[in-house]
């Protein structure tokens, strides 16, 4: 029997809260008290610096940040600087990697593959660029990836897929330290709106497939909305 990954849609969650939730889940998964989880959410505008981050890649002035209410956080994931904001689907898989899957690079590739398949489900062709993590539409970055692996091969952090993100927020950073390539969103590529819950449902399905896990929607009542594949109506 395949083990399950509990998929939760959390709505808009402040960065700090999402970190705390991930930390407690990582502990619970390690102790075997929780199944694998996939947290899907949006963040209010925030800039985060991975362990490998160059502070010079944050272009936001302190005054502008304060004026716009954008926080800056240092965080324990891999990777450089990134920007999160409404319309961006953020996914944090808290997964206990086992057996052959205990391979950091393989795990990154699985996330990339899941995202490529999920956006393909929406009719978007995206690719990898060798040597760069994330997924790309042409020369433009569609999703960023940064992962942490804790004791016992428990994953946290994850990916940020621009669904309908206001891309102007990215002007405050040099995304992942890459200056010569832009960012894009599913909405911009398709020229029409994409509901973040639709994108979330596809990503959940695809990621579970790639990780050979059985996706189980959260039974929490407020999330059933998502679990019934909603927002189908105009």
């Amino acid at each position, binding site marked *: *029997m395949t083990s399950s990954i509990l998929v939760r849609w959390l709505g808009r969650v402040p960065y700090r809260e999402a970190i705390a939730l991930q930390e407690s889940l990582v502990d619970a998964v390690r102790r075997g008290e929780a199944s694998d989880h996939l947290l899907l959410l949006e963040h209010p505008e925030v800039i985060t610096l991975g*362990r490998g981050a160059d502070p010079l890649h944050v272009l936001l002035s302190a005054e502008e940040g304060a004026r716009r209410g954008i926080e800056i956080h240092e965080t324990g994931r891999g990777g450089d600087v990134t920007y999160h904001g409404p319309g961006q689907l953020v996914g944090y898989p808290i997964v206990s990697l086992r057996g052959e899957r205990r391979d950091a*690079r393989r795990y990154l590739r699985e996330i990339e593959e899941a995202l490529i398949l999920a956006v393909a489900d929406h009719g978007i062709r995206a690719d990898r660029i060798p040597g760069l993590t994330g997924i790309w539409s042409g020369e433009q970055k569609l999703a960023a990836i940064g992962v942490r692996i804790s*004791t016992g091969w428990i994953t946290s952090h994850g990916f940020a897929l621009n669904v309908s993100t206001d891309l102007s927020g990215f002007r405050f950073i040099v995304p992942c330290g890459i200056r010569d390539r832009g960012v894009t969103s599913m909405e911009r590529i398709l020229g029409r709106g994409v509901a973040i819950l639709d994108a979330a449902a596809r990503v959940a399905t695809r990621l579970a497939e790639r990780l050979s896990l059985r996706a189980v929607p959260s039974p929490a009542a407020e999330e059933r909305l998502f679990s019934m594949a909603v927002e189908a*109506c105009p």
Partner: protein
Amino acid sequence: MRVDVIMPQMGESIAEGTITRWMKKVGDTVQRDEPLFEISTDKVDAEIPSPSAGTLLEIRNREGETVPVSQVVGVIETDASAAASGPATPESPKPAAAPKAPAAAPARPTQEPERAPAAPASSAAPTPPGRSSEQGAPFLSPVVRRIAEEQGVDPTRVPGTGAGGRVTKKDILDFIAREGAAAPPAAAGIASTPSTPTFAAGERVKRVPMSPMRKKIAEHMVESRRTSAHVHSVFEVDMSRVSKLREKYRGAYEERHGVKLTFLPFFIKSACEALRAWPVLNSSVEGEESVYRRELNIGIAVALDWGLIVPVVKHADELSVAGLARKVNDLADRARTKKLNPDEVAGGTFTITNPGVFGGLFGLPIIHQPQVAILGVGGIQRRPVVIDDAIAIRPMVYLSMSYDHRVVDGAIADQFLAQVKRSLESFDESLL
């Protein structure tokens, strides 16, 4: 005893890692499996647990240094008295960050598979380019080691093309393809395995006892198949009206009733009406008698990460849509937090389940005994449909029902479903 701390193999194609943080200083005591240092490879940051309990005697590579896999980066003295006599190297790194390791890392001395894979402690230096089989066991990734063991191949015979001459998975697979395996291949082969169990080297099967809940589910399902003559009908329903009503009342529900208005209460409400019209679907079979139930107690299948449970909405027909929404939310919440009372999962007379969550069109569920029918609600999807000779896009859902042919014939089941469909497609706004 001195134990080497080595740069672990974080993946087959990963040859080195950069130390980003030491959580311990030289002289600090450390528990086995307590986070000792952090490394960075690619876009992955990893926390590396200590290989054993003791005192950190030596740090050979500081923060910021990039080190090949399996190189010794530090040394731990497991014997307390020896450690007290002083560190081997007085050099200690700048304590850049205060150790933020969790105060009491769970000590779990016996659970080998949970630890990050450690390379053999004997290989003190990275394997030099070229072959190195003469100097003891070459470094092998766990995958390669497993394949070698399963296939009975001596890994030192395999030419390595990986970083530092290491044998990669591809190398060993190519080698086996070329030379053949010494032993017959394992039955399951070496294709990527589903993730659940961790197999020890050489282990071909793993027996895991079922949880009590799993056993219950298994018993119930098989018993139901044995008891009832399952038949299935599938209907398609246009959810436009329900979607619009839900959209219209959603805000008000949240404000007035403090509850999110989901689709489920609509399905329950419509099913209740139809159950009143076709009471045999709300019955059960005892011996050679049909037992009809006056109460409509609707079970709602709730998936949990540890199984499945069916809490029951008692007297569902007496509740308003808001009442149903609140009740369902409450039951699902308490199911998840294991706070249901035993009587809240008993006494159901009909069940609704939700097989369409991940894009499935419909499912054919197994009847929850001693009931005689179970309704499956598929995923709601926008699909092209023909309306008055025109093609329109409508939110559609498949309703599937499994029923017991001992007492319910297809004609009855289909009329029941037709009524549920009618009731959803022309949902009575006054019920909201």
